[in-house]
C-alpha cells in the first residue's frame, strides 16, 4: 500500500480529514523549504504538496507565479526539489510528499529518469497540471512501475463520464479544483462543491481532496466536512512572500496558519 493510501486509511479510522498544505519549493530560497516542510508536519499536515517552480505557471494566479519567480531566481530545478524530498526523508519516513507542477521540467529530465530518481528519494506522488490522462499513458506506466501515485485534477467542468476515466488512470487521491479559475482566485461555494463530490464518489472509491479557494479556518472546516482532504496553498505562499526578507520566521509563521486550520477541522 502506498504511503498516501495508508495515510488516508489511518485518518479515516480516526474520523479525521487530511490537511494538505502546498508550498513552492525553493521559495524564497532553497534552504527554507525542508525546515518548512517539517514545521508543516508538526502543525498537523498529513500530506505535503511541494510545488516545482516553472517559468510559465499557466494555471496559477499571481501569488504562486511570484513564488515561482523567487524560487527560479535561486535556480531551483526539478532535480533540486527531488533532493529536498530526500533531505526531508532523512528524518521523516511517514508523511507522504507529492510534487505538483508542470510537465516540461519532467519532459526534459525524461520520464524514466524522473521515475527512478523519484523512487530513490522517497517521493510518493506527482501531480502534473498540464498532463491529462489522454497524454499520460507512458508517464503512468513508468510512475506505476516506480510505485509513485499519479494524482489527477477534476474540475467543475469535468463531465461525469470523464470523472470515471480520470479516476481509473490515477491513484492515491484525486484533486477536485473547486473553482473555475487559477490558484488563489475566487472563494468557493461549499454547497456546489458538496454536490459535485457526490457525483465524483459515484465513480471512485479514492479519497477526494479539494483545493483552490480555501483561505481560512472557516473554509478549511467547511470543506473538511464534505471532502477527504483539504488542500491549501496561496494563503501559505502569501505568508512566505511577506516574510521573504526575514526567512528565519517563515516555518513558524506558515505553520501557525496550518495549525489553526487543523484545529478548526478537528473540532
Amino acid at each position, binding site marked *: 500500500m502506498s504511503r498516501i493510501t495508508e495515510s488516508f486509511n489511518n485518518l479515516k479510522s480516526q474520523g479525521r480529514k487530511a490537511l494538505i498544505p502546498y508550498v513552492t519549493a525553493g521559495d524564497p530560497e532553497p534552504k527554507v523549504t525542508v525546515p518548512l516542510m517539517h514545521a508543516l508536519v508538526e502543525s498537523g499536515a498529513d500530506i505535503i504538496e511541494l510545488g516545482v*517552480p*516553472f*517559468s*510559465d*505557471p*499557466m*494555471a*496559477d*494566479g499571481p501569488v504562486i*507565479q511570484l513564488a515561482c*519567480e523567487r524560487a*527560479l531566481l535561486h*535556480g531551483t*530545478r*526539478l*532535480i533540486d526539489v527531488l533532493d529536498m524530498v530526500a533531505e526531508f526523508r532523512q528524518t521523516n519516513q511517514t508523511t507522504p510528499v507529492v510534487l505538483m507542477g*508542470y*510537465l*516540461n*521540467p*519532467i*519532459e*526534459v*529530465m525524461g520520464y524514466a529518469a524522473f521515475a527512478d530518481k523519484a523512487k530513490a528519494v522517497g517521493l510518493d506522488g506527482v501531480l502534473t*497540471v*498540464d*498532463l*491529462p490522462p*489522454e*497524454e499520460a499513458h507512458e508517464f503512468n506506466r513508468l510512475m506505476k512501475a516506480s510505485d509513485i501515485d499519479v494524482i*489527477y*485534477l*477534476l*474540475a*467543475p*467542468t*469535468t*463531465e461525469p463520464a*470523464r470523472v470515471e476515466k*480520470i479516476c481509473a488512470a490515477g491513484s492515491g487521491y484525486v484533486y477536485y*479544483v473547486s473553482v*473555475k*479559475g*487559477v490558484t488563489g*482566485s475566487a472563494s468557493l461555494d461549499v454547497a456546489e462543491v458538496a454536490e459535485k463530490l457526490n457525483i465524483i464518489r459515484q465513480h471512485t472509491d479514492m479519497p477526494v481532496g479539494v483545493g483552490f479557494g480555501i483561505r481560512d479556518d472557516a473554509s478549511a472546516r467547511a470543506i473538511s466536512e464534505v471532502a477527504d482532504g483539504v488542500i491549501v496553498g496561496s494563503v501559505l505562499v502569501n505568508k512566505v512572500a511577506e516574510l521573504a526578507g526575514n526567512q528565519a520566521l517563515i516555518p513558524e509563521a506558515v505553520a501557525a496558519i496550518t495549525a489553526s486550520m487543523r484545529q478548526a477541522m478537528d473540532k
Partner: protein
Amino acid sequence: MPTKEDLAIAKQMPDAGGHFGQFGGRYVSETLMAALQQLEQTYEKLWRDPQFQAEFDRDLAHYVGRPSPLYHAERLSRELGGAQIYLKREDLNHTGAHKVNNTIGQALLAKFTGKPRVSAETGAGQHGVASATVAARLGLECTVYMGEEDIRRQALNVYRMKLLGAEVVSVKSGTRTLKDAMNEAMRDWVTNVDNTFYIIGTAAGPHPYPKLVRDFQSIIGREARQQCLTQTGKLPDVLIACVGGGSNAIGLFHPFIEDADVRMVGVEAGGYGIETGQHAAPLSAGSRPGVLHGNRTSLMSDEGGQVIGTHSVSAGLDYPGVGPEHAYLKEIGRAEYTAINDDEALHAFRHLTLTEGIMPALESSHAVAEAMKMAPTMDKDQIIVVNLSGRGDKDIHTVAEIDGINF
C-alpha cells in the same frame, strides 16, 4: 526524403488526438478539457457545413478583400539576378496581415457557440487588432493580452485595438512578451470558460487549435497555388514564409504538402544570431521537444526545463516555441527551417520598400531576407513564392527608433 505515402499521411495530420507524429496533442489543465472537446466537436461539424463555408468565403471576399494578389516583384528579382520572386500579398488584407483570415473563422465559431466574449493574446498586435476587429463587427466583448514590452514597441496597434473597443491588458510577468501574454490569456480562459471564446492567434496551443488555425489560413496556399499556375503555368520551386507560431507559414505550405517538388522553407527569428542564444528560432537551433501552451513541440527550454527568454526585433516572431505541425514537417523532412537575424530583416525591410514600394512587416521581412539570399543561387526561370504576411506600418516606430528618430 519522405515518400509519396509519407506525404499523403502528412497531409491528413493531425490524428484524432491532435497529434502530428510525436508533436501536438492537448496538454492543458482539466478545467479546459471540456471546452476544448466542445470546440473540437463544433469545429468538425461546422467546417464540413456548406452554410458555414459559404459564410466564411463571403467574409473573406467582401470583408477581408480576398483573394489577395500574387505579385511578381520584377525589379527585386531582376536586381538579384536569379529566381523570380512572387509576393503573396497578405499585407493587403483588411487590418494589414494574414491574421484576419483566422479571426474571421474563429469569430464565426464564437458566433455559432453563442459566447458573448472573446479573448486573445498578441505579440505584434496584428492578431489583437484582427480579433478586436471581428469582435467589433459581431458586437462581442473583447479582451486582448499583450506583453508590456510589446505594448511599448507596437504602440500604434495598441491604440488601434482600443479604438476598436477592445480592452488591452498589459502583461507584466515573465519576459513580458508573447509567451507571457499567452499564459495570461489561458488564465483568463480558465476563469471565464463559460462565456468566453479564446481566439488563439497562431497555429499552436492545444488541439484543435493548431488544426483549425491551419485550416482557416490554408486559403493563402490554395490561392497562391492556383495563382502561380495561372500566371506562370507551373508550381513554384520554393515557398518561403516567416515562422513565429507558424500560422502564415502553415497556411501557405499545407496545400502544397503533396507537391513533393515544391520546397518549403520556414524562416525563424535569428535575433542577434543563433550562436548568441538570443533568438527565437527553436527549429533552426535544434531545440528539444518540450511542452508549453497546450502542445508538445520544439521548445527553447534549459536543462531544467524552464522556458528560455527569446529575442527578436519583431514582436510577432518573439516566441520560444513553434506550432507542432512545423516540428513534424521538419522531423519527416518535408519542410526546412532556417533563421534570419535582426539586421538582415531590417535590411530586407528597407530594401523591399525601396525596390518595390512595398513596406513589409518586420516579421515578413525575415521571409523577404531569406528570398533575397536564395534567389541569386537559383535559375532565372525558377520561382520563389514569399508570403508577405503583413504590412510594415506598425513597425515604422521601431525602425525610426533604430534610425535615432523620435516622433
